[in-house]
């Protein structure tokens, strides 16, 4: 059919005697389209707002009086399985509260949390890496926990290790409770040490340097084995307590690593290792990390003589990724630590976001997760996650003592937790910028693009004058 004929046919149809009735029907139909669309739109909005009303902040109270709360985390894999066990245990032992765990990818977790807070749809609690807490507290996105530290919770802060309590404080106010703490020490590969002709692990920085120097292996241009390389992906801050370089502020409260003797000593320590090829180390570590989703490293793979890491390395990574290493490693306090063994306190903390619907119940769950009045269960879970408990009370539990007996290397981490020299970085609102600057500066030392002093000046400049609002 040619176009002209279509046109003619359509004209003929419009002249049909019943056209008025059809036009009316058509008008009715067309009139119904916007109405239908508007109704659908309204229904969608109603459904959304209804959802928001019933699950505001992901929480609701059911008819039987049970308070439903949502716990948002950013974990995956084996740790997520542990979280499920913890939630099940809490729900079974607390009939008045029902916790639902909601997992978001870590890459977008912070952004999602902020969006939820801004939209008034925050979860009841959220697990965060504590360095960001300063920023969150400063901009008012999280709630202080002070109102809940009464009655049976009055002794909660004192129940924790001092570094654990300090890790949740901003401007001397408690904003977060730890779920898992870190403690750092030096792992060594026994067979590599033996092959290097060294009979015992080092106790001084000079010994560490000399011992590890015997362990590097190259095949031509290829790196086959690392001795020790502190500069890669382990921030300046993690080594800070060993050098007395944590919390280097001037009298006005600004970061001042440039004039901090501990920070200078640490930067020089890093520079000492800059003679080894950073690019080869980074390539080896990244490739190994990619094999199992980023948790493997050269030490786990049996390709590094010494590695500064936390209890998760021996408790979780090695058994899961390279069991043949399980009997081939030892742990000692970091050699030459200023003043005696210490660690840098950081960890995963739970926070109550602004706008959480049931902060009281969230706090109750957070305290339980920290192990408060829950030492027995906590002492069974912490070792599985490779986490340090938040309180010495958990360590004293029979289950934890059995774990320590079976894994004597863990005692180094435990002892450091209560050391008076252990320190938590003071939370500031530019801690994230400080850490990003540290990572860049550490790498710059390794790449010979900055001297140690220039690197320290760069960190100060970035952390103090961080651009932008």
């Amino acid at each position, binding site marked *: 059919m040619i176009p002209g004929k279509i046109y003619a046919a359509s004209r003929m149809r419009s002249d049909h005697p019943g056209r008025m009735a059809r036009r009316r029907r058509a008008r009715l139909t*067309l009139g119904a*389209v*916007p109405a239908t*669309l508007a109704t659908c739109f309204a229904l969608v909005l109603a459904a959304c707002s209804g959802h928001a009303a019933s699950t505001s902040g992901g929480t609701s109270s059911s008819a039987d009086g049970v308070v439903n709360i949502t716990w948002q985390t950013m974990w995956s894999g084996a740790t997520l399985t542990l979280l499920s066990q913890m939630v099940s245990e809490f729900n079974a032992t607390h009939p008045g509260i029902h916790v639902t765990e909601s997992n978001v990818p870590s890459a*977008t977790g*912070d*952004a999602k949390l*902020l*969006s939820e*807070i*801004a939209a008034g749809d925050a979860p009841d609690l959220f697990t965060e890496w504590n360095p960001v807490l300063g*920023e969150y507290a400063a*901009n*008012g*996105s999280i709630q202080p926990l002070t109102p809940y530290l009464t009655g049976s919770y009055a002794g909660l802060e004192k129940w924790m290790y001092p570094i654990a309590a300090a890790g949740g404080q901003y401007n001397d106010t408690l904003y977060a409770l730890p779920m898992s703490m870190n403690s750092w020490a030096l792992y060594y590969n026994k067979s590599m040490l033996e092959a290097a002709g060294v009979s015992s692990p080092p106790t001084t920085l000079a010994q560490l340097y000399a011992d590890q120097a015997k362990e590097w292996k190259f095949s*031509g*241009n*290829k*790196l*086959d084995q690392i001795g020790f390389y502190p500069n890669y*992906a382990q921030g300046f801050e993690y080594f800070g307590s060993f050098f007395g370089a944590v919390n280097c502020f001037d009298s006005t409260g600004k970061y001042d690593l440039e004039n901090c003797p501990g920070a200078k000593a640490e930067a020089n320590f890093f520079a000492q290792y800059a003679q080894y*090829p*950073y*690019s*080869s180390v*980074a*390539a*080896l570590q*990244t*490739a190994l*990390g*990619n094999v199992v989703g980023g948790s493997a490293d050269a030490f786990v793979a049996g390709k590094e003589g010494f590695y500064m890491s936390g209890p998760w390395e021996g408790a979780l990574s090695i058994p899961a990724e390279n069991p043949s290493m399980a009997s081939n490693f030892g742990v000692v306090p970091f050699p030459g630590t200023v003043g005696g063994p210490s660690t840098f306190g950081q960890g995963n903390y739970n926070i109550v976001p*602004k706008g959480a619907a049931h902060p009281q119940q969230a706090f109750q769950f957070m305290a339980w997760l920290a192990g408060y009045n829950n030492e027995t269960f906590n002492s069974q879970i912490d070792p599985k996650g490779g986490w340090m408990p938040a309180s010495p009370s958990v360590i004293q539990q029979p289950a934890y003592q059995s774990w320590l007996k079976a894994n004597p290397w863990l005692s180094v981490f435990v002892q450091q937790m209560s050391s008076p020299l252990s320190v938590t970085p003071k939370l500031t609102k*530019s801690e*994230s*910028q400080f850490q*990003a600057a540290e*990572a*860049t500066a550490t*790498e*710059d030392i390794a*790449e010979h*693009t900055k001297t140690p002093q220039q690197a320290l000046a760069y960190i100060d400049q970035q952390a103090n004058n*961080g*651009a*932008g*609002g």
Partner: protein
Amino acid sequence: MQVTAPAIRALRSPQARRLRLGLLFVSPWIIGYCVFYLYPFLATLYYSFTSFTGIGNPQFTGLANYRGLFHDSMFRTAVFNTFYYTVIEVPFSTVAALGLALLLNMNVRGQAIYRTLFYIPSIVPVVASSLIFVWIFQPSFGIVNSLLSDVHVNGPAWFFSITWSKPTFILLGLWGLGQPMVIYLAALQGVPKELYEVAELEGASPWQRLRRVTIPMISPVILFNLIMSLVLSIQYFTQAQVIENPPGSPGDSTMFYVTYYYQQAFQFLHLGYASAMAFLLFIGVIIVTVVLLRTSSRWVYYENDQR
């Protein structure tokens, strides 16, 4: 206000009805555009003049964020890295994709298989392919350096070398050539055969046929791919974010514009500052696109062009 009879008639006229109907049918798009494009755009512009962390009320700071950007050395580094990547990657990938399309347009046995093989990489998720390339370019045991060592060449550290990191990302860009290649291929098949026959009769060599017939005839498609490629290069992010740890390393050599934007927005919560960056990026993309379109009249040939 009294509505006059002509006004009522105009409202009830067939044209007005058709307009209303038309608007009704495009309303889902209009609503989507306003909600998901226009509002975010205007909000970004507003936030760029504020100090904002995502929570609470933004504090108006005037041009402070823009002034901050021009004094921010990392911002300059990010602009330079992005410029470097774009200036080399875009011509490189354009020539490679066009060359590949020309080869795949030749009448050879197994043509469909070759086309499929060259297209397949572009449907592999970017994160997965990035992780694969970490291994391919791994300096100690990666396949590239292994092959180079077979011919007695010491391969560089690729992604982990300050000198080689950006060129390696440019090489990685070749992995995603399938998309423009298919578009070129479709354009090549649309070139009338008669033009080649006439050119052949006139004694044109294959090179002359390519220069005088093929390229002019597919020049609108080259322009399209060029603009798309430029925009994507300026917004380069995912591969660098996945591969480098910390992002931007080694030595800030892979700190691309969007990598820095992401760091400011979602790591430091400087949403006002990041909004200023986003707006400058938008301006940059607009300028580049307009310049390309303006200059295109000199080299792009449209068959129905009256000039």
